[in-house]
């Protein structure tokens, strides 16, 4: 059986989606990081997020 390829065998470069804290920690260790400008839909408002979830492009509009 062939052993699995090492996950982080070479130089590590990271794309961070979410909290900046993860990126900052890696940057402090000298790891190149690109942060995606992401935020939760509707600023985290659950009611609005639920409305948005009902308006996808594939939703039948009548």
């Amino acid at each position, binding site marked *: 059986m062939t052993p699995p390829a090492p996950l982080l065998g070479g130089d590590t470069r990271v794309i961070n989606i979410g909290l900046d804290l993860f990126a900052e920690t890696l940057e402090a260790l000298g790891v190149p990081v690109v942060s995606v400008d992401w935020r939760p839909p509707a600023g985290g408002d659950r009611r*609005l997020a639920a409305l948005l979830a009902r308006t996808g492009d*594939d939703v039948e509009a009548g």
Partner: protein
Amino acid sequence: MTIGDANRECLRRIQAGTARLVALRPARDVVPGLGERSVLHAGPPVAWERMCGPMRGAVIGACLFEGWAKTAEDAVRLADSGALAFDPCHHHRAVGPMAGIITPSMAVWVVQNDARGTEAYATLNEGTGKVLRFGAYDPPVLDRFAWINRALAPILDGALQRAGGLDAKTLIARALTMGDECHNRTTAATCLLTRELAPHVAAARAGDTERALAFLARTDHFFLNIAMAACKAVLDGAHGVRGATVVTAMARNGVEFGLRVSGTGDRWFTAPAPKVDGLYFPGYGPEDANPDLGDSAITEAAGLGGFAMATAPAVVQFIGGTPELALQITWRMYEITLGEHETFKIPALDFRGAPLGIDIRRVVETGIVPAIDTGLAHREAGVGQVGAGIAEAPIACFVQALEAFVAELPI
């Protein structure tokens, strides 16, 4: 039809829309539903009692212009009496910058969208500063206003007829490559218009042609009203697509900001009109300014103005910003739009199409709101323009629109 299909159809109609400038006519001859005491105003509906200072000033000026009143006090009494029929310009296929007042004797541009069979109207631009649309109504303002409507309009209509009409959409597209965003800067578009009309004005030799051409030469915002009517004709052609979440009108009456969405019919979604972040003329400051005002945000809904800000580095000086800010604003608007304009291109972005088709879903999802280039009117009647700046559309309107849209979806 799915929401995606509806939005694609809505965007297709906007892209295919045409804007042919065909005539200047007295409003009473062409604007549908205009009665002899009709007073159309900018923005969503607002009663006389709630109108802001500059709009009241423009109503007073219109009453004096029409001869309905001999003094400002008479005009106020007339409005108080209920004898005037107030209604939004948008309810009559028209748009008006700032106060947006249209009364029957005022001349209006007629713009036709042949692709959809729609027609839209807007008054002639008076220039900036102390002008009627910003609420001023003293004798020099009214003298100029009367000359524009009774002398300049027939000259330009004659020239327009002789030219066989003009393609406003093409003029806008060319102006975008010459530093206009066609809202707060229409210098290039006005030059292009003047270049087209001047030979016909000269050939017709009717009226005071020297004064007419001199007025065009010094009135940088002259094309604004034409751009607005062009955008209105195109967006009306994309209104009423069931299931579409695209904004087809944004307008302010100085008290409230309102928007309409293609798929939710003619209802307005409103919130208090925003304050404007801007640059003031000498002697004025934020305490003097009225909240945002005017139908001119129709240009942003069509991919111009704040959405095309990257085309107009010169305009940012007029509104107190930087060229870098102009680029950032346009980049941000791509986040809330469904497409890119196939005709209106932005040179600074490698001729990328202007962000087009504001999607209420994306606004609510991202929290990014439309940026609107705008003028600043003094909050009191009779003063006029005090500056210019950028306003942000209130997100509450988009939330209301989304709620209404979802409520109307089939279960």
